[in-house]
């Protein structure tokens, strides 16, 4: 039997969860001996393959129409979807934006920040439209949730190695942290 395939992608994220994934260090090799990593935002191949993967991992909150499309694509192409990190699970720090009016938030980010010169709110057709921030499970069905900001390398190793061996991981005890 060929090795199960894993694909990861990020939505509205700070990349910290993927840094924590790299933090597994030499245990990455153990995971790779059990499973094949087909695509990942920090490798050359960015998108999950059309033929699908066993495990899809999403980090970051859903924050724009692009995020919704990425989440739906991952859901379609994977059997088990993992929401990894507080933002993917709960909406996390991205949710703070919901306390403000969207136009106000955009103006603050693109125009009013002290370091911005001649700023404007980008409005290209190619860009996704911002939406209310939320966790991934409010857009697509999520099978495994691993909260944490970011989840520790130990927790990520636990989840990925369990999944690679065909088991649904139990997230509890030291593996379950919200910060």
């Amino acid at each position, binding site marked *: 039997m060929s090795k199960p395939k894993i694909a990861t992608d990020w939505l509205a994220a700070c990349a910290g969860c993927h840094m924590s994934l790299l933090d597994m260090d030499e245990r990455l090799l153990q995971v790779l001996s059990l499973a094949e990593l087909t695509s990942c935002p920090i490798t050359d191949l960015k998108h999950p393959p059309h033929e699908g993967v066993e495990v899809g991992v999403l980090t970051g909150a859903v924050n724009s129409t692009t995020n919704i499309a990425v989440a739906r694509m991952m859901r379609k192409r994977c059997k088990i979807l993992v929401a990894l990190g*507080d933002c993917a699970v*709960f909406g996390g720090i991205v949710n703070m934006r919901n*306390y403000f009016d969207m136009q106000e938030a955009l103006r603050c980010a693109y125009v009013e920040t002290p370091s911005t010169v001649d700023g404007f709110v980008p409005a290209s057709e190619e860009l996704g439209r911002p939406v209310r921030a939320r*966790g991934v499970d409010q857009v697509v069905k999520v099978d495994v949730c691993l909260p944490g900001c970011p989840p520790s390398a130990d927790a990520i190793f636990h989840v990925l190695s369990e999944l690679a061996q065909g088991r649904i991981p139990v*997230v509890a005890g030291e593996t*379950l942290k*919200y910060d």
Partner: protein
Amino acid sequence: MSKVNLKINGKTVQAPAGSTILEAARLAEVDIPVLCHHPKLANLGSCRICLVEIARQPNLHPACTYPVFEGMEVQTESPRVVEMRKFVLDMLFSERNHHCMYCEMSGDCELQNLAYRYRMDRWSFPSPHPHMPVDATRKYFLLDHSRCILCRRCLRACSDLAANHTLGVKNRGADTMICADMDLSFGESSCVSCGTCLEVCPTGALVDRRSAYMGRTAEVQRVRSSCAACSLGCGVELVVRGGQVLRVESDWDRHNEGVLCVAGRFEPLEQTREKITRPLVRRDGQLQEATWVEALDALVSGLRQAAPGGIRAVTSGAVLSEGMNEFVNFFKGKMGVPVHLLEPALAGSELAADGGLKDVDAADFILVAGGDPLASHRVLGYRIKRAIDKGAEVWLVSGKETEMAHFAARCLGLAELDSAVAHCMESRSPVVVYGADLTAREAGRLARLRGKARFIPLAPSPNGHRAQVLGLEPAAGWAGAKALFVLLESALLQEGWLQEFRRPQFLAVYASCRSPLTDQADVVLPALQWYERQGTFINMEGRNVDVHQAVEPGGEGWSVQKLFDRLSGCMT
């Protein structure tokens, strides 16, 4: 007391009749989770996290309010109970902002601990993200409504423990909010910043501004000690990390029962005075840093020049007993020098100090004479207000305007003391609280109540009782003093304490902080800071209370004992 037999999770338990399921479970060492329950507060049953299953009853019931009965069978972690607890947690997390990642209390939060315990790895209900205000109008701590779970512990602490009745709730249902008075900001409200609510809050809704993000429970040490801000000697726990006192919390097992005041909890850490960390000696008219050897040399020669008749010594009543003893032994015993007390003393040394806070709880009549406990001994003041809530009558006899006057049933002038004494005689269990504004004659009139009432003195200095035992009294004047030694420590010199004071030829001050007095001195000896010293003092109940060193001395300060041990060696 009759006992009731019941079973909790199949385990046979015998609990006193009338106790709650929660109390019985604690006897049986069965852990039932709680949020709105607090051991020192009345039970409310508002959070529903302690729901348990009782055999032959259709509904689940809160363990914190449900009384035990004979033959009761309780399940505390059955599948049905666990499912319901998860549901309750889901509801609590969905209400407001409970993102732990940017919360000050993360790691120390009772709500978070329960989410971990019940393995909450996702939220079943999306949060509506209501925009909640943060009230930061108070100097020492703030309230972030978005972290509040409306358990009302703060409210009960404010009413039942501190008896201040500032906190309440406004609106209904999901719009319910904790509010102060008639919906004022906390800064404008009747809040006295005693911080009792801050200490009982189970989440990150109430946050201490000074120690926020400076260390979680697992990273700090706790040193049990006593507050020396006044003569109550309230039990405190100093929260320490990396050689720094982060904050002061209360010791719930001591006579103050968890209540502190702003002077004990917050103000000691708001030190704005410059610390004295090295000995200073005046050379060419300027105070200059010196070694201890140089400072002791200067001190010895200054004292010798004034000896024998020109030396006077004065100590603050804030100095701990061990130091005060040593000081009196040295000056009075060895040198034959009169020793005085810096702070004013209470008139009426013939009056007893036989009452305590427990007596206030049990009193039906409290006579407050010649003082204002709400200004000088606040925790006692709160306790008196608590007694008023329970039906005690308070009469105030004072020549001044006082805070206590708002709560007293009758306010009399000092001339009407006799009618208050007469009323006291007719009471069942009266308590007399007397302060420094009484003259010896008025104190004499109170003395008629000896044997009838319990007496609580409002000593103007924390260790005034020890000073009284040692026979120290304020000096009438300083004429003829050539050399003066002031054992000031951390006391803040107030007007009128050094009456008719004129700088003598030689002035030595032992102090922890710079003040106008140390600026005039010829020799300044660095004292230990309040959190660096170790010893005891006699509180207003006449009991010895311990003060423990919380951190190692940061400067070159010496304890009083060490100072006079070395000085004795130099003077012989």
